[in-house]
């Protein structure tokens, strides 16, 4: 009994304290239940809004030596200021061979850890020929000098670790004409023969896209993309009769809602 009081008493005091400090003066004039509902609604209205974004960063056709491919990179998030569900997908569909060479989807919990950075953790699935699941951990945000960064590490279900770093920059020629240099580096900590990936830096993408924002949400673009494979990955590609390096002309659309 004494123990019970020991806990209950401070709780009562705390509650009383909370009562005394809350903004409930209007309860004296209006139905306290209606006031409580209004109070909660107003609290929620000012700062607790649920927001979302869907953005197709790159929805494009890449043309290279007569070959063409559809390439996409899209993201979406839904959530609050600090916590969001973040989806990312990218892929590469070869129009000639009707082959989905790459198709990955990531579902991440994204948590704001500082003014400019989100910590992200979650799951990735590859849908191409060799299906694989990965655990993902990453950091996404805005680096000094306005570099949009996305750095992620992946561990496949087989235990192979890899990492990817993406960086983008925007150079405004006018308020609507924007040049976007983009870089992506892929690194494997171990060789994965199944997927044809060698150890070390195995693939780099560089891109330069010039878009025109008819509306902020709708921007067609033209550009060039260069892709290069390195080391064992390049060798494996060459063995398979493919180029280890290719430069494409791209035409695409950037959309968001």
């Amino acid at each position, binding site marked *: 009994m004494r123990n019970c009081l020991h806990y209950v008493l401070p709780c009562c005091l705390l509650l009383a304290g909370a009562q005394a*400090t*809350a*903004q*409930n*003066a*209007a309860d004296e*004039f*209006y*139905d306290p239940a*209606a*006031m409580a*509902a*209004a*109070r*909660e*609604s*107003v*609290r*929620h*209205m*000012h*700062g*607790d*809004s649920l*927001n*979302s*974004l869907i953005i197709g960063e790159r929805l494009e056709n890449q043309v290279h030596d007569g070959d063409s491919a559809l390439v996409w990179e899209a993201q979406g998030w839904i959530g609050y*200021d*600090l916590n969001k569900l973040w989806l990312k997908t990218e892929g590469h569909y070869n129009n000639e061979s009707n082959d989905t060479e790459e198709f990955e989807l990531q579902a991440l919990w994204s948590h*704001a*850890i*500082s*003014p*400019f*950075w989100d910590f992200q953790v979650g799951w990735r699935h590859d849908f191409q020929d060799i299906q694989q699941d990965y655990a993902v951990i990453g950091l996404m945000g*805005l680096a*000094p*000098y*306005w570099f949009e960064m996305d750095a992620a590490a992946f561990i496949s279900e087989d235990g192979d670790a890899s990492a990817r770093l993406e960086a983008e920059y925007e*150079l*405004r*020629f*006018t*308020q*609507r004409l924007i040049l976007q240099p983009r870089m992506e580096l892929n690194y494997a900590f171990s060789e994965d023969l199944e997927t044809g990936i060698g150890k070390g830096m195995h693939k780099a993408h560089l891109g330069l896209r010039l878009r025109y924002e008819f509306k*902020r949400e709708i921007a067609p673009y033209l550009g060039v993309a260069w892709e290069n494979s390195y080391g064992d990955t390049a060798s494996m590609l060459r063995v398979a009769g493919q180029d280890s390096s290719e430069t494409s002309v791209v035409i695409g659309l950037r959309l*968001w809602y």
Partner: protein
Amino acid sequence: MLNRRHFLEKSLLFGAVSGFQALLPAWAQSGRFIADLPGMLTANNISLTVEQTKSAIAGKSARHITLNGQFPAPLLRWREGDDLSIQVINGLREPTSIHWHGFLLPFQMDGVPGLSYPGIPAGDKFTYRFPLKQSGTYWYHSHSGMQEQIGHYGPIIVDPAEPDPVAYDREHVIMLSDWTFENPERVFAKLKKMSENYNFQQRTVGEFFRDVESEGIDAAMANRLMWGDMRMTPIDLADVTGATYTYLVNGHSPAENWLGLFRPGERVRLRFINASAMSIFNVRIPGLPMTVVQSDGLNVVPVATDEFQIGTAETFDVIVQPNADQVFTIMCETNDRYGYASATLATRAGMRAAVPSLRPRPTLTMKDMGMSGMEGMNMDTMNHSTMNHSTMNHGASEAMAMPVDHSNMDHASMNHSESIQSTMAIDHSAMDHSAMNHGDSEAMAMPMDHSNMDHASMNHSESNAQVTMPMDHNEMNHATMAMSEMDSMATQPMAMQAHNHPQGPGVMNTAMNPVNRLHERPLGLENVPHRVLVYTDLESLDPNPDTREPGREIELHLTSNMERYMWSFDGVKFSEVKEPIVFQQGERLRLSMVNDTMMPHPVHLHGMYFDVVIRPGEHHHKPRKHTIVIKPGEKMSVDITADAPGDWAFHCHLLYHMHAGMMRAVSVRDQLS
């Protein structure tokens, strides 16, 4: 106490009144005086029906809110001392409310859902009953959701019980607002997705090369690097711009050109009300000087000017006296210079004066970051050779470019004196580091003004302060620092600003050296070749009702993260706040506000006036405001008499900032009972 100057000015004013006003009390003739505002309601017992209607705004079909079928809402004209009974019928499909902006009334009649009352549910009614204890120009608007953005606002004139000390022959309400054809929820959502969505005045490659031409490659590059380093932009002037807004005067777009008539020689009173959701206007009438006679409903000692800034929710009454058969444009340029509202003053319809072109977009400076005295500094000229940077920690900080860990810095070996003293004659002898305790601070930067440094008040061991200087030392140029800047520093001792509030993802910047900027012209008007009203020009015409020294001081910081579009006070959004700010009933207190953001914020307290502290120790004629614009990088104070028991809203009057969380509840209560 009235000094002689006041007395003279007042007697001039009253002299003009007594002859005219005795014959023509303004309220009696208002119907004739106020043109283009049909449906004025003057009874003490009125009814307002809130509805959503489809009609044309700026010539385009729009869904908007009307009160009694009107947009903007009807002009309400009452008399001081009236006992009011106002029935509000909610014809919307959602709850609504009416807040009487600037009125001193019982809090349960203030009209803020969740604080003063539950709001008015869809299809329901509510009757406001309160006595009118004041006179002047006011306005009313919804405090529910985004209704204010879609037309739920109207003007109020309260005629004084005593003869009006302001003499005028004719009056017009000039109600400024911003209209978007987008759904305001969508506007807010877009800001959350891409905060710079509406900014079409961003810096371009071309501007860089123009700057290289005018300032040289080093300066242009250094400037880009500095801002880039902070991930902030010096053109972050307004979140929602003319890219989506059409700016209105009394519901008229510039093309629709609202017309106010006058007869030559008349004293015309223009009652400016900024009823916009997100816009701050700079107002001028080229060719016609203005005399400001009132702000926020309270008379001020008349002050002549050619241009004034009106923050969202502020009101300014001015007298103009056009003497000839002329035509004038009332030009209301937004502070980002991307749009404008305009109207015409003329002797007859069909006349139109030239509309001035928009002036160039201004840019923010280091001072707007709360780093006063650091504009254009170049540390190249300083001797850093003996400074011990070896233990500086450049590692972890997010927000800041150069977080310097001073825990091991040897100040004794710093030698700034020769290089600076020779050019700037700064006396370092006043520097007192004795009380500095950098021991436990997370990250601390180097204060640049060494002339009057007062570190005595610093105590970083308790605070979790992250006061840093996001600056590359290569860019600082003491040699080019204007002497006027030095002067202002001398009068404003540089005490490092403490930030005893949560930071984290919602706080992008903390002002290191915020300064009082009440005497400064608003951004972009620093160098215009005519008179510009500043807050220190305002002086209450009536003696202040409460002349006590404040018994205590509360400090509140305006905080934000523009990238994430988060806005808050003290780093905490309204949705996260557990308790109101408590004022002891009857107390006189000082509220000091520090603007850590890069934007001006019109801050509004319900139910009580801000007595703006212009000169410390002066307690008799402080200008009294219900809304005051706090400039970026500013620290300023207002005194408040907590004489209105109950719960009141306190918020930034930029609608989307409030919506994002820049709001608090203030609870005035007798804590002893």
